């Protein structure tokens, strides 16, 4: 579904990613793991063309056979790519409903607003009670729900998620991952950047380990958990 080849990227003159190549199969959940600052967010943003590409040679980002390497970020959603950023980043001064409606801003999503709204509310029932509340007054978990819902409103094929567990109460973290699993089962492919390896690997089909801007390890979801490296690096055991 998504294929990334030889990606070198960063911000301005600072290069963060080196020769990244990865694949996400249709209907899969794929996780990119790595410590804080390893470049996980940068990787997702690079796919969305929000970073500076460094030394562009032979790089390619292919979605469903279509080259989206140089597509401007605002066109991504039309190609079916939705993004859930780190820390949710909902529009703080807008109501929950407005946030969700923003998700369905692209013309092709507008006709499906009603049904998608229902889908979101069935996924996160408590949101339906807060439709008119300003997003900035929500708790962290609710914001995360709004961000996920907002992404779903665009009717995506591929969901990019940046650290969905960040700053959430552990209980909410498992909720979030359950929601991700549910979304995946409905046919949405998910690329996840996550530190919380246990939860992430539990639901992932495949995973990559990113360190200092390079992929150093890849493998099948739960199998990776058994790797010594992971234990050492993330569990300090």
């Amino acid at each position, binding site marked *: 579904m998504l294929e990334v080849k030889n990606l070198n990227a960063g911000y301005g003159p600072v290069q963060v990613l080196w020769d990244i190549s990865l694949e996400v199969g249709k209907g899969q959940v794929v996780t990119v793991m790595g410590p804080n600052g390893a470049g996980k967010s940068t990787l997702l943003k690079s796919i969305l063309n*929000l970073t500076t590409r460094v030394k562009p040679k032979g790089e390619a980002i292919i979605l469903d056979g279509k080259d989206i390497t140089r597509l401007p*970020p*605002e066109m991504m959603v*039309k190609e079916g790519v*939705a993004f859930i*950023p780190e820390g949710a*980043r909902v*529009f703080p001064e807008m109501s929950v409903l*407005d946030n969700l409606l*923003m998700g369905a801003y692209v013309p092709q999503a507008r006709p499906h607003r009603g049904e998608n709204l229902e889908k979101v509310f069935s996924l996160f029932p408590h949101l339906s009670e807060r439709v008119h509340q300003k997003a900035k007054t929500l708790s962290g978990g609710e914001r995360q729900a709004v961000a996920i819902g907002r992404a779903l409103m665009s009717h995506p094929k591929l969901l990019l998620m940046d650290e969905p567990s960040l700053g959430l109460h552990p209980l909410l973290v498992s909720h979030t991952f359950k929601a991700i699993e549910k979304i995946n089962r409905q046919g949405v492919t998910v690329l996840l950047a996550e530190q919380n390896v246990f939860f992430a690997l539990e639901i992932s089909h495949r995973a990559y380990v990113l360190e200092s801007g390079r992929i150093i390890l890849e493998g099948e979801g739960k199998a990776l958990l058994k790797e010594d490296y992971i234990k050492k690096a993330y569990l300090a055991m």
Partner: protein
Amino acid sequence: MLIQAIITGLLLGGIYAVYSAGFSLIFGVMGVVNIAHGDLVMLGAFTSYWLFTLGHIDPFLSIPFSALTLFIVGYGIQRLIINRVVEAPPIMSYICTFGIHLIIANLALRLWTADYRSITTSYCGSHLECAGLVIPYARLATFGMAVVMVGGLYLFLNRTDIGRAIRATAQDREMARLMGVRANHVYAMTFGIGAAITGVAGSLISSYFVIYPQMGLSYTVTAFCVVVLGGMGYIPGALLGGLILGVLESLTATYWNAGMSSALTFFILFLMLIFMPAGITGKGIVE
């Protein structure tokens, strides 16, 4: 006397509100302090003036024309110039809009000479008199239009897709882009809409204020005051700020000295910024 002063102030404040609403919108969404704002008022006023003079179209009827003209002007300015400095430090946008002010004001001077003009309609000056109070019809209608315009802008921002996109872009440009919003287009739309409503204000004043190419800067300054009073970037604040400023000026002119009204305005503006930077409503953007 007091009631008359307050009514006069409110009627004046309505006008302040309309042209400040556009200023507030542009600041709120892009962080641009548009120094050329008063020139947009001037262009709107001239549009009405020419339509009146050449086509005998009533200033109130020429509102759609000036809105459309100014929308195009505003969209163009943003698309061609300001989009290139919107990410730069704020000083760039101030100076850039000052450059635009010079261009517009002096082009107008070149085209239309420095003559003072004004539209004198048949109903100009006719007024409603009740209980000893004088309320000019034109101003009353203008006031009504003002409230409708500001309210309409508020509803537009809150109820339409493009309005939602404008607000979203203002709050988080990057996320808005990822929702499929073309930020540059939305910025240009915002400026266009801000300019259009300002053009309407220009049309509204054309029937009772004097029009000339160099009139712009003083309107920009008033817009500063109104917007700071009401909270920068908060549209209903512009209405409140405009009305307060109008009443304040009217009361000072009535009970004290017209000369003091503008010194007092600036003094209050200064104090507001220091003690209540978010405006009376407390809803302005504070950096």
